């Protein structure tokens, strides 16, 4: 309830955008080009000590100093909401020039002509070196054959484990050759209800947070989410069942701490306080574990011992059309900001993984491992990012169906095969609807 306030906020945003729309001309012939940029990982100071925000502001300041004809207003817009907020902005023709968008948003964004197709600009500029970005990033920036974004952030999943709990349970620490059987056995051994201790934390809200952890496992087992032309679900294959079985085994042994509200940070807090043996997560979480003596290991493998695939959540800078002058200026900035020299400085300032492969070899990148302990494993793990989630508009619906299947198994309401078959049926129904 108190819904009225929420609705009012949405309505104010929509109407506000509608009322002020239209007058979106950029620069007057004489003055500098004014750009608006949305970004937001964590709130800027004083609310939170957002390293990303501070680093971005610094680099923007540097850029505008050398480009006096361009001015950039950085607005904090929580990344979780940037697609939601973009909708009223587009309705009112008041779109920002540059926005931070999750990789999973790209297919929906492809539906508006106001998003700038960067394909030609990227192809015609050899110095930009598009192939320097990781393959998973490039896929996530592309929809319908068009490049609609430039990678802004890349991360991937690995297993973070508590070294002390492993030692206490007499378990050897995981190696890069470990298997899912090893993980399941360790999780069961690490579980002790009397001490309120669990082997592994797993998100169980059925959202994309649940689904992408499972998708990494699915790829490791040799499976796929959809077929090549994205018309049919493939996750209910034997590989899909193989991938879901370790979760079922751990759930049955009560070795999982199921987190039904993963955004609230419960799993992270419990890992930090030594109540959880392992957590599958990305580099962004390491700062949440100051108390835990942790190690990081790549994902375990199934039958193929060389397949330690992971999943990346690459996000993008997406440019919107406010006239050619502003588009050119926005591209000028994004190009500069995502060049190796800036990427390396941003990574060193924030601990974010470098979005470009060449950055790892830069002298300025040396010392990253010491500055951000454990992140090194995530950097090398980028090579295990082979596949990407399908960039189609129906993906959120497919993901919702798959999420329900995983949670059913976690809660013991269905076995993997039945749950995945049901989800596949639902997904196929969704995919059959023409878009």
């Amino acid at each position, binding site marked *: *309830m*108190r*819904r009225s306030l*929420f609705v*009012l906020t949405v*309505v*104010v945003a*929509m*109407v506000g955008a509608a*009322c002020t729309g239209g007058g979106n001309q950029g620069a007057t012939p004489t003055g500098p080009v004014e750009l608006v940029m949305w970004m937001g990982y964590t709130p800027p100071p004083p609310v939170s000590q957002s390293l990303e925000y501070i680093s971005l502001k610094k680099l923007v300041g540097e850029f505008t100093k050398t480009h006096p004809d361009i001015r950039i207003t950085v607005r904090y817009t929580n990344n979780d909401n940037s697609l*939601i907020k*973009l*909708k*009223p902005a*587009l*309705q009112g023709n008041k779109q920002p020039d540059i926005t931070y968008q999750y990789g999973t948003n790209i297919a*929906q*964004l492809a*539906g*508006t*002509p106001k998003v700038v197709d960067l394909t030609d600009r990227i192809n015609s500029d050899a110095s930009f070196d598009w192939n320097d970005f990781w393959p998973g990033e490039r896929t996530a920036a592309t929809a319908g054959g068009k490049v609609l974004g430039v990678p802004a952030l890349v991360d991937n999943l690995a297993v973070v484990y508590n070294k002390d709990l492993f030692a206490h349970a007499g378990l050897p620490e995981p190696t890069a050759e470990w298997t899912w059987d090893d993980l399941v056995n360790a999780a069961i051994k690490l579980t002790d209800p009397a001490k*309120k201790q669990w082997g592994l934390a797993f998100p*169980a*809200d*059925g*959202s994309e947070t649940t689904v992408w952890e499972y998708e990494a496992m699915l790829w490791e087992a040799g499976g796929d989410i959809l077929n090549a032309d994205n018309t049919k679900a493939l996750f209910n294959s034997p590989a899909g069942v193989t991938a879901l079985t370790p979760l079922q085994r751990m759930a049955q042994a009560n070795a999982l*701490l*199921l987190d*039904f*509200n993963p955004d*609230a940070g419960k799993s992270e807090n419990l890992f930090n306080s030594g109540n959880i043996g392992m957590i599958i997560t990305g580099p962004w979480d390491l700062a949440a574990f100051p108390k835990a003596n942790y190690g990081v290991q790549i994902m375990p493998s199934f039958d193929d011992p060389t397949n330690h695939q992971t999943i990346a959540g690459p996000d993008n800078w997406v440019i919107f059309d406010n006239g050619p002058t502003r588009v050119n200026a926005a591209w000028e900035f994004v190009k500069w900001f995502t060049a190796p020299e800036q990427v390396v400085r941003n990574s060193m300032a924030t601990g974010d993984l470098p979005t470009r492969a060449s950055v790892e070899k830069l002298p300025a990148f040396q010392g990253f491992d010491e500055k951000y302990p454990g992140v090194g494993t995530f950097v090398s793990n980028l090579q295990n990012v082979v596949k990407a989630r399908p960039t189609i*508009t129906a993906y*959120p*619906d497919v993901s*919702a169906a798959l999420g*329900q299947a995983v*949670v*059913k198994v976690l*809660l013991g*309401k269905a076995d993997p095969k039945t749950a995945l078959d049901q989800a596949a049926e639902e997904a196929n129904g969704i995919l059959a609807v023409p878009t």
Partner: protein
Amino acid sequence: MGVRRALRSDHAVGWALAFPAVFLITVFGLVPIVWSFVLSFQKTNLIAPNPPFVGLANYRALAKDPVFRLSVVHSLIYTALFVPLSVGGALALAMALNRKIHGIRLYRTAVFVPVVASTIATAIMFLVLFDKNFGLANWALEKVGLGPFGFFESVDGALYSIVAMTVWGWLGFDVIIYLAALQGVPQELIEAAAIDGAGRWSLFRNVTLPLLGPATLFLVVWSTINALQLFDEVYFLTRGGPLRATYVVVYYLFDLAFQRGIAGYAAAIAYVLFLAILALTIVQLWVGKKVVYYSS
């Protein structure tokens, strides 16, 4: 009539005074209402321009949508529990608080505090209180040999946990309304009935309760509308889970429109919900007219 006279007239002053409210209601109320009505006949994700009109397809799709049906059932269960528990509970509390005892102001304030606390603060508190492994509720239950219960984390219990939390959160508001109504019960009526030999129960049943009729009708109508629009608590506490156990109509609508980009269909759900609430309110007011006693 000269301009001057027109400006000085009561009409001009009236309009000038009403303008801010009329303007805000039009812009923030009427325009979106009409707009979402148009949306409900379109296939739109609010991103692509010139969305196609699809006639009644969105409304027809509702009939075949199992998740919509599930959400409606959950909304109805929630409303059926929330309204009587909060209104009935408030009546009992208001009777208890309508006495001249030491520290009564403190008690009344305590009862009202949850209404003032923000939903999110309340939700965080209940999340901690009802935690399956570390919560105070389960600790207490364990002492008497029960539990642990999953509360928000259990498929069977999540919706009822939200009922418990929201009843707690809104009780204070209903209590204030009832307390105000109780102050309006004429003392001479109570005394007259007492002289005629009415006992405490009889006094309550035959004098106080009928005089509280208008307040009760207001609270029932208001709580029902609110309950059918449940959203914040679900969004924050359970995200509709576990396994869609707390999918209610407005949460489903939000999920469709803003997370999955199916805004036209979501607008159709909003209109169906609007009509359902309108119909229910009309029935409630009609029944109220028959049974509620207005003293004036």
